[in-house]
Structure formats: C-alpha cells, structure tokens
C-alpha cells in the first residue's frame, strides 16, 4: 500500500496531430478501479464527503497553457451579436478581442439613396434603444446645413422626448445588467417601467420604437391632447420605482460583490480610447455634451451631471440610476415651461403644408407631393453634430453636394467606440466577471454595426 502511494504517476503523452503516434497501452482492468489509495481521507475526497481546492495558479505559465475561448456571437448576455475572443490563463483573462459586424446592414450606404426627409427612418433603426437621439443628431445636422432654426416648442418637445428616451434606455441597461448578474427580478421591473414610457411614445409618435418623430425642421406631430397628465403620471410613478430598485440592488451584498472593483476603466484610459457617456463619467471625468456644448436649448434647464469615482461596474450602474433622476428633473421643467407655438418651422422649403390645406388647394397638394417624392435640396457643405445619447457622444457627420440626398452620412456610434474599452476593462480580470463588464458598458449592437 505505501509503495503505491509514493510512486509517481506515469506521465501521459498527448498525441498532437501530424506527429508520430505514441504507443498507447491498452486499458487494463486495473485502470477502471476507483483508486488504488483506499486510505480514509482519500476515499472521503473521492466520495465527495470532503471538498478540497486543489487548483494551484502557476506563475510561470507559458504560452502553451493559454487558451483562447470564443464567446458569442450567439450568447444572450452579449446584448446582440457580439463575439469576443478571450485569451485565458486559467480563470484569468489576459487579452480580449471584440469581433463585430454581424449586424452590419450598410445603413450609411442606404442613407445615400434616401432623401434628407427619409433619412430619419433610416437612422432611427441604428441604436434601437435610443431612436430619438439618433433622429435628433441627424435632424440637427441637416438643419445646420440648411441654416434654419426650429421653433422653441419644437426644441422643447425634442428635449422632453429625448430625456424620456434616456430614462427608457437606462432602464433597459439596468434590467439587462441585473439579469446578467443574476438579479432576474430587476430585468422584469426594468422592462415594466420602460413600457410605461414607451406607451407614452406610442401615443405621441404612433410607434413604440423607431419613431421617425424628430425630423429636419421640427417634429412630426404636436404632443397629443392630455400629454401633461401622462408625463405627470410618469414623473410621479417612476421615482417611486427607482427607489425600489435601490432597495433591491444598491446595498445588496450579492450585487455589490459582483460589481464593486470589477471591470475598472481609469479616467486616462477612458479619454485615450474615446469612451463617452456614463462609462466615462463613472471614471470621474466631468464631461457631458448637454452641459459643455448644449443643443436644442437644453442649457435652459437645471440638472446635475452625476459622476463616479472608481470607474467600475458598480459606478457605471450608479451613474445611470442618478442620470435617470436628472433626466426626470429636465422633463419636469420642460413640462412646466412648454412654450406655445408651432411644432415645426414655417419654411415651405422643408415643411409640408398642413393636412387640411391639401384638401382645398391644388398647390398645397403639389407641394406636398414634391416634398415627399423629390425631397428638398440642401446646400453643399459638411458638418458634424453631436448629441449626448444614453451611451455617450452620438455624432452625425453629414456631407451634402447640393442635391436632395446626402452625399455621405456617417454616424459616430457611442457603442462602437465604447467597445474599445472592453479589452481594457476585462484585462487581468476573472472570466466570471466578463458578463457583468459587458453589461455595464451597455453596448447596442445596432449602433455598433449600423
């Protein structure tokens, strides 16, 4: 018995394809036995009565011991079709390479065959969680090339709708982040509250998503009758729910231990890699386009920019929650100070005639027909307009050669740039934290691949 124990086990050659096949000894009866060491402690381990951790991390691991694991593209927690090539050393991630393009549908090419008026139907489908921000960035770019100014009411409606959209988008981020870390109830709650915002969107724009509501020259329609009651209802209901989320997550030991100190991005890394939005602010960089380079008169309203300190998953979650409160603050101010007036510019070049005029005037009918078939011409030039989307800087680079279709339209998607931060956030962290880190960056693949 003692002889068996001291004997070193035979090394087993692993046959590598293309090399000479080693001499494998045929399995004998003895190898089928449960174990030759039948001492009490060994048997306890074998029967599972005692669990011991026998994993020893090898500091001198060579490249042979590194393993490359493919995650995705079909994985529920990659928020779409994101594929990650992860180089592992045991449980520890050394390098990550995001591989994207699975959702690429050539929307920038499509934009070149659509008129400026049709363009919003295209861009709204890019970032499907914040469609109104996409429409806003595009519309602002077209308006800048046209050199027109939209009425105050149109701007106020735009701010109202985009800030509500920010809340809806952050709710999805929270919901999916919760789901990925194991708080499944958070996912149900997040989507439930988002639905209440989406039903207001449906009432206003006709669609839950992909609204095509914000258009060059203003918005598609005025706010519906009774909109104040709906918004007031949201303002009353949502903060109560947010407090419930805080009860559920803020100090939850499982949540905090899975998110605190995980997936850290420092402020220097974030700026170097062009990361924007809540992911940048969680690292402590005070940068919000709404404050620094305001658009649509958003500087008229009072709000704060919540900042994180550590740049970890928890801070990104926290920044999002606090941003939702700030957005509701803006919504409340817009609601109370909604200016009267037209919801689109009174410029016949861009705006179609009112519906009632079409029935009585032949010219109005022709005008309407021309605008929706030929579109309007935009003077030659190029511009870049950026708005603060829920994910960061959403920019539209628009080039016109004087025709009715954009010569080139490029959207700078915040998720696209933020994905570059994923390898940094995940380097030298545990495999198990991957999902939490991806969720905290909140990438929308429609925005990444376009």
């Amino acid at each position, binding site marked *: 018995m003692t002889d068996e124990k001291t004997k070193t086990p035979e090394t087993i050659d692993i046959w590598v394809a293309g090399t000479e096949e080693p001499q494998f000894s045929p399995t004998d009866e003895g190898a089928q036995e449960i174990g030759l060491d039948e001492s009490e402690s060994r048997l306890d381990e074998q029967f599972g009565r005692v669990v011991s951790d026998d994993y020893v991390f090898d500091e001198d691991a060579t490249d042979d011991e590194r393993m490359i694991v493919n995650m995705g593209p079909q994985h529920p927690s990659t928020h779409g079709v994101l594929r990650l090539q992860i180089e592992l050393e045991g449980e520890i991630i050394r390098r990550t390479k995001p591989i*994207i*393009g699975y959702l*690429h549908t*050539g929307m*920038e*090419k*499509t934009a*070149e*065959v659509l008129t400026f008026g049709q363009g919003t139907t295209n861009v709204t489908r890019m970032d499907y969680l914040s469609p109104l921000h996409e429409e806003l960035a595009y519309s602002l770019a077209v308006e*800048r*090339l046209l*050199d027109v100014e939209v009425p105050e009411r149109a701007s106020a409606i735009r701010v109202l709708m985009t800030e509500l959209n920010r809340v809806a988008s952050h709710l999805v981020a929270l919901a999916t982040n919760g789901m990925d870390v194991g708080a499944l109830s958070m996912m149900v709650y997040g989507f439930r509250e988002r639905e209440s915002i989406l039903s207001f969107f449906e009432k206003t724009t006709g669609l839950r998503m992909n609204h095509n509501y914000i258009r060059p020259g203003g918005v598609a329609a005025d706010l519906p009758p009774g909109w104040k009651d709906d918004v007031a209802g949201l303002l009353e209901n949502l903060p109560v729910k947010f407090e419930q989320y805080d009860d559920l997550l803020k100090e939850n030991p499982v949540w905090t231990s899975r998110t605190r100190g995980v997936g850290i991005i420092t402020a220097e890394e974030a*700026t*170097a*890699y*062009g*990361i924007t939005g809540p992911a940048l602010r969680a690292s402590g*960089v005070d*940068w919000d386009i709404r404050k*620094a*380079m305001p658009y649509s008169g958003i500087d008229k309203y009072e709000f704060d920019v919540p900042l994180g300190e550590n740049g970890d998953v928890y801070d990104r979650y926290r920044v999002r929650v606090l941003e939702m409160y700030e957005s509701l603050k803006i919504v409340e101010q817009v609601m109370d100070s909604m200016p009267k007036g037209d919801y689109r510019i009174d410029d016949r070049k861009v705006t179609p005639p009112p519906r009632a005029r079409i029935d009585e005037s032949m010219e109005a009918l022709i005008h309407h027909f021309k605008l929706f078939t030929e579109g309007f011409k935009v003077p030659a*030039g*190029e*511009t*870049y307009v*950026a708005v603060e989307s829920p994910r960061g*800087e959403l*920019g539209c*680079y628009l*080039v016109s*050669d004087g025709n009715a279709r954009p*010569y*080139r339209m*490029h959207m*700078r998607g915040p998720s*696209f*740039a933020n*994905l*570059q931060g994923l390898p940094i956030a995940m380097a030298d962290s545990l495999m198990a934290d991957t999902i939490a880190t991806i969720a905290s960056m909140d990438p929308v693949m429609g925005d990444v*691949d*376009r």
Partner: protein
Amino acid sequence: MSDFSPLIDELVAGFESAVLEDSHGQAVVRLQRDDWVDFAKAAKDAGFEVCVDVTAVDWMRQRPERFEVVANLLSMQHKLRLRMITTVGRQEPTVGSLVPIWPGADFAEREAYDMFGIVFEGHPDLTRILMPDDWEGHPLRKDFGVGAVPVQFKASHQVD
C-alpha cells in the same frame, strides 16, 4: 485670425500648408497628407485629448484627389472641437495612422479601411471590421453598387 480660439489659431499657424476654414461655425483644418500625423501630435499636445471619430468621403470623378479622410477631435478641457481633413488619391489611398497618438482611433480607422479601402500606415491591426474577412471591394465607395435582392413575385403573370 479666426473667431474660434487662439489655441486653434496657434496650432494651425505652426503648419505652413494647413488652411483653417469655417464650416457652418465649426473649425475645419485642411492639411497636406504629409502633415496629417504631425498635426495630430501637435493637436494632442495642445489639449485635444480625444479623437472622436475617423471617417472618409469618396469624391469619385468630382475632385482631383478622390478621397477625403476626416478626423474629428475634441478637447474636453477647452470645450473645443476641431476637424482635420486631408485628401488622398485613388492610386495610393494611404495616410498615417492616428492610433499611436489616440488609441481610440483604432476601430474608426479599421472601419474607414473596410468601407473605403483607405490604408492607415502604422495601424497595428488594419483588418476588416464590419464586413466579412473575405469580402471583395469596399462598400461605401461610390462605384460600389447599392445592390438588390431578387423578389420572387415582382414580375408575376397577370391574372385574368
């Protein structure tokens, strides 16, 4: 002198060939291709700490140099934006890479390579990013067709 910022004036004055333009109230600097990387370095030292975006425009048969390469810079500390534009020809669409200066230009340059075939010299991993690896051509070039999917019932027989 422009009405943008003394910082931008000073930056542009350092390069003989650089031309500062006002494009709808935004600062645009047009550069010679050889100055592209040097200007970017100077811009970073001047406080433009973020390269927001790199993209391209195809001016096929409209301009002598076919492609425009566009980079949008952002200075968070000075709250300024600056757009760098240079042109590259059809025969050799090559320009220096900004990745050594701003690592965040990585994905954007790969996209410009994928979509336009612009080669960024010095980029660590210039491969296709959105299109499949074996794709032929560069889709956002103007001579690349939009394409159409055959529809089964489009030319259906008329029913009496």
